[in-house]
């Protein structure tokens, strides 16, 4: 059984026995991991109080080759995100990031770009618009996992998008032109400003502030995409503001 060192974000913890804890982690090197931290609930342990939600740690673990839980043996806190502890909307957004990573990524399937994006998002939350930061994270998550919506042409006929009467359809995988909007599946009216917002969020210009109305519209669109792909709404979705 080989010992490994990973840098990992704590996504979820569950108490296991009097002193132990099971942690779900998202690491840069290995993707999602689940491990048993024996003594992880003790105040004085080799886990340095690092097994707390949304804490970045250097972890030492023993990988189980038989398919059981990995054994976490040590954790050193690298970074906490203090703004999450000061603003409730930022904290809920942080929980949402953790939920999406925990439920939507696979074990041993690393996504270094997504890991970096998650850390950047957690660092940014509480500084400026929480809503826009979450939309950017969702956009990057969808792109990284291969679910990026089609926003540059009609997702049905692949024709050009006019500036009027656009709709978004999660089932179709993107924006629909007026000619393709008939048919089954939920269609959500999409303003040209919101389409511009989606394009901006997918680009390096994502920090340019979106109008409240556009952000609220995109919140609905993004929630619809994620709910459609996962087959159920995320638990934290109702906690997110516009």
């Amino acid at each position: 059984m080989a010992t490994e060192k990973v840098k990992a974000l704590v996504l979820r913890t569950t108490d296991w026995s009097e002193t132990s804890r099971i942690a779900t982690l998202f690491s840069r090197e290995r993707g999602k991991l689940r491990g048993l931290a024996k003594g992880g609930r003790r105040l004085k342990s080799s886990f340095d109080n690092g097994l707390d939600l949304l804490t970045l740690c250097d972890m030492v673990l023993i990988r189980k080759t038989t398919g059981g839980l990995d054994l976490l043996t040590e954790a050193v806190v690298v970074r906490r995100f203090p703004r999450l502890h000061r603003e409730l909307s930022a904290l809920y957004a942080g929980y949402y990031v953790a939920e999406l990573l925990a439920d939507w990524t696979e074990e041993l399937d690393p996504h270094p770009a997504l890991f970096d994006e998650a850390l950047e998002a957690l660092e940014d939350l509480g500084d400026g618009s929480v809503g826009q930061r979450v939309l950017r994270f969702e956009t990057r998550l969808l792109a990284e996992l291969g679910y990026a919506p089609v926003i540059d042409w009609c997702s049905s006929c692949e024709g050009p998008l006019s500036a009027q009467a656009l709709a978004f359809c999660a089932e179709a995988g993107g924006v629909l032109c007026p000619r393709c909007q008939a048919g089954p599946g939920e269609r959500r009216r999409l303003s040209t400003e919101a389409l511009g917002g989606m394009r901006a969020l997918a680009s390096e210009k994502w920090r340019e502030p979106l109008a409240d109305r556009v952000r609220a519209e995109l919140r609905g669109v993004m929630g619809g995409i994620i709910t459609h792909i996962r087959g159920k709404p995320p638990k934290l979705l109702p906690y997110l503001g516009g």
Partner: protein
Amino acid sequence: MNTPREQPGGVISRLMAELAKLPGIGPKSAERLTHHLLAARREEVLVLADALRALKEQIRRCELCCAPTEHVRCELCADTRRDPSIICVVEQPRDLTALQRAGGYRGRYHVLHGCLSPLDGIGPEHLTIDALLDRVRAGGVQEVIMATNPTTEGDGTALYLSSLLSPLGVRVTRLARGLPSGSVLEFANNQMLADALEGRRSF
């Protein structure tokens, strides 16, 4: 887990299975305890059984602080010498016990019976938040001390409560955090030092 002559679902197996559900008790400890009870005098075992039954039949939540009690009001809420203008909010009854053991605090308590954990589906409706707000709205409370655990979820619960309590005109404070008394700086971890620096105060 079955003894050689015991069928699954028999009295002994059932007791072992029930004991093994307790925290810190594994199958082997459950077996040991079962055999200990089997060998013990009947009166001793029945006293234990009565105590267990009484626990669930006679213990209720204090009408004020929601701590477990045998009476309508717990001992601490019934004590007129305690200061009713300060309420210390804790997650679990065992946290109240720990604070009482430390001594020094002369105010009252409120037990939430958990903390907000949206990822686990635990929302405000699962805690005794309404009862706390009712206490504060009833008047006479000047300060509410947040003594939730210093974890992300504990801090989140304290944040949520303070957003509800502050508009009611009470002072909302939280426990200090940082260096334990008697320790040395050299061995303190980064978080302890950061908290201690942030929470520094004048002499």
